[in-house]
């Protein structure tokens, strides 16, 4: 396997959790809800994914556990913000704080134990094609799910009636309500979808990326996923591009650390976070464009006036 191929493979592995979590949050935000709890749901997915795999002996059941954990955990946020109209920013933050605490507690007995790795795809012949074989036919199953998810979200949001309805709720929840659309029900489902995606992204971290459980192992990826949604101006394809850009930055700095160029490793480790800030600045400076793309009801509480 050539060095270029292995670098591209690791970039895809680093990008996949960002892509999945950001796609989920994109659908949530398109419905007009801002869930800042991505980091918390992701870390819950990571710990439950790891625990599920360790307890059942099946990495696949671990993936299922991760998805379920994210979706169930997101219900807490959904109940507070949608049913009893709490502040979305503060509630999202508390989901992250609780998720980081709860995952530490659940995972305590798993620290240091060897994990299961979700096996990569192997198609005899196809996976062995030089250069592109492994990239196209030899990656982990969640990578393929992430690509399918991108296509699925594009199709759902822009090619189905339900997707159109969801977007209309995100742009004007009062009008949607007046038209008889069950705003709260749509938003519940959107938030749970976002939670399931964040859970899957977390399970990818603890079952593929680094098959082990380490406290706070998401290391801000949930927040980067949130930034990706803004960066992508709420478009799924741009989320894909952004996730791979960030994957490249992450892997690039790891390689630079390995080469030992005399650059402090801490500076290199902070590159993904600094890149997030820079990218956000570049994309947000055009005030008009941002305003046009942002779902108009984003973050605003909705209480049906019966």
């Amino acid at each position, binding site marked *: 396997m050539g060095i270029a191929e292995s670098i591209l493979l690791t970039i895809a592995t680093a990008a996949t959790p960002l892509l999945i979590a950001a796609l989920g949050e994109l659908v949530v935000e398109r419905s007009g809800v801002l869930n800042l709890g991505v980091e918390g749901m992701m870390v819950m997915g990571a710990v439950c994914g790891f625990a599920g795999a360790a307890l059942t002996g099946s990495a696949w059941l671990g993936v299922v556990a991760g998805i379920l954990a994210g979706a169930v955990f997101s219900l807490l946020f959904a109940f507070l913000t949608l049913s009893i109209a709490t502040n979305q920013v503060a509630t999202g933050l508390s989901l992250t704080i609780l998720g980081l605490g709860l995952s530490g507690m659940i995972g305590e007995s798993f620290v240091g134990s060897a994990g299961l790795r979700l096996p990569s795809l192997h198609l005899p012949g196809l996976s062995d094609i030089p250069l592109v074989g492994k990239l196209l036919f030899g990656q982990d199953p969640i990578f393929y799910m992430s690509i399918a998810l991108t296509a699925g979200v594009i199709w759902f949001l822009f090619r189905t009636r339900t997707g159109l309805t969801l977007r209309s709720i995100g742009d004007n929840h009062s009008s949607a309500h007046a038209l008889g659309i069950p705003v709260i029900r749509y938003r519940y489902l959107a938030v749970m979808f976002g939670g399931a995606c964040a859970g899957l992204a977390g399970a990818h971290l603890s079952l593929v990326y680094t098959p082990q459980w380490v406290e706070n192992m998401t290391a801000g990826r949930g*927040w980067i996923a949130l930034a990706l949604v803004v960066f992508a101006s709420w478009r799924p394809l741009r989320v894909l591009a952004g996730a791979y850009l960030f994957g490249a930055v992450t892997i690039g700095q790891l390689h630079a650390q390995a080469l030992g160029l005399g650059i402090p490793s*801490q500076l290199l480790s902070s590159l993904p976070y600094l890149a997030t800030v820079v990218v956000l600045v570049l994309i947000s*400076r055009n005030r008009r464009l941002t305003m046009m793309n942002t779902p108009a009801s984003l973050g605003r509480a909705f209480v049906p006036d019966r």
Partner: protein
Amino acid sequence: MRIELVKRPQQSALFSALSPFIALALTLVAGAVMFSLLGKSPVDGIYYYFIDPLREQWSLEALTVKAAPLILIAVGLAVCYSSNNWNIGAEGQFVIGGITGSILPVLVPQFQGPLLLPLMLVMGAIGGALYAAIPALLKTRFNTNEILTSLMLVYVAQLFLDWLVRGAWRDPGGNNFPRTVTFGPDAVLPKILPSQDTANLGIVFALLAAVIVWFLMGRTLKGFEVRVLGASPRAGRFAGFSASKMVFFAFMLSGALAGLAGISEVSGAIGYLQPTISPGYGFTAIIVAFLGRLNPLGIIAAGLILGLTYLGGEAAQISLGLSDKVVRVFQGLLLFFVLGCDTLIHYRVRLAGFGASKAARGV
């Protein structure tokens, strides 16, 4: 059955006062359930968490050491959140304040004297304020989301501290431990009274800051400006208030307080810089700010309660063998209940069956 919210004509004064207490009671119940699930007696759990640390002089002093940074940071955050500026990077501003405040004792250790400590505190506050000015600048100049930028800068600050104590600032005589030289005697935040073991001036700063900000918010035009711009930026503009100046004011005030908390912690509780100088004070302070209902005097009480959870966590770990992770779960649950109970202030909550809700609609 479903939940219906009916908007109150005006905020309920009763629930404004009661909601933090309801939230605390619910957290205790949830905590008791959690202790039972972990196979411990709920009574013992609650006892070690919330009562045992209050029984001895030394642990009451330790409580002030834990509560001081929480109160200092949360008071600043209250100004931010009241003005609708979402600074969630106080943890980073705390770390930077700890670093800039330590410049003199680490780089110029021969400099001693009564001027040293005040200079350190001022430098810590300035460092925190300048670090908080970055998200403020990006928000006002480039319209960048301050939630994400302030949070990203937390990671950057932590890595910067890590680099300093392992590299340029490492104590050459420290057996390769990643830490700076121990501060000289004049660089250490003194105890409130010489007879005390742990309680240092940090809690005095915290109480002073809370009272000053309480006065600022409730009794001055600036406080009015904060609240108007927070409630309605449009109304604020008509009143002639500048929204972007407010962004800088709120961020830099809270950054300065977080920075002051940082250097107070380093100088008063640790005595040198090391890779980690905070057990998440900057994030826990968010909970403190909300539990105190963004009121500086309420925040004093809230800071003591959250400080108690840190101590109680240690007590329960020693006495019951409970994981120290339980503390963060407690804190997270508390914030959930606080936010949920605040709904009662603005809405009447009605549990409606299908029939009842139809009747309410007049169908």
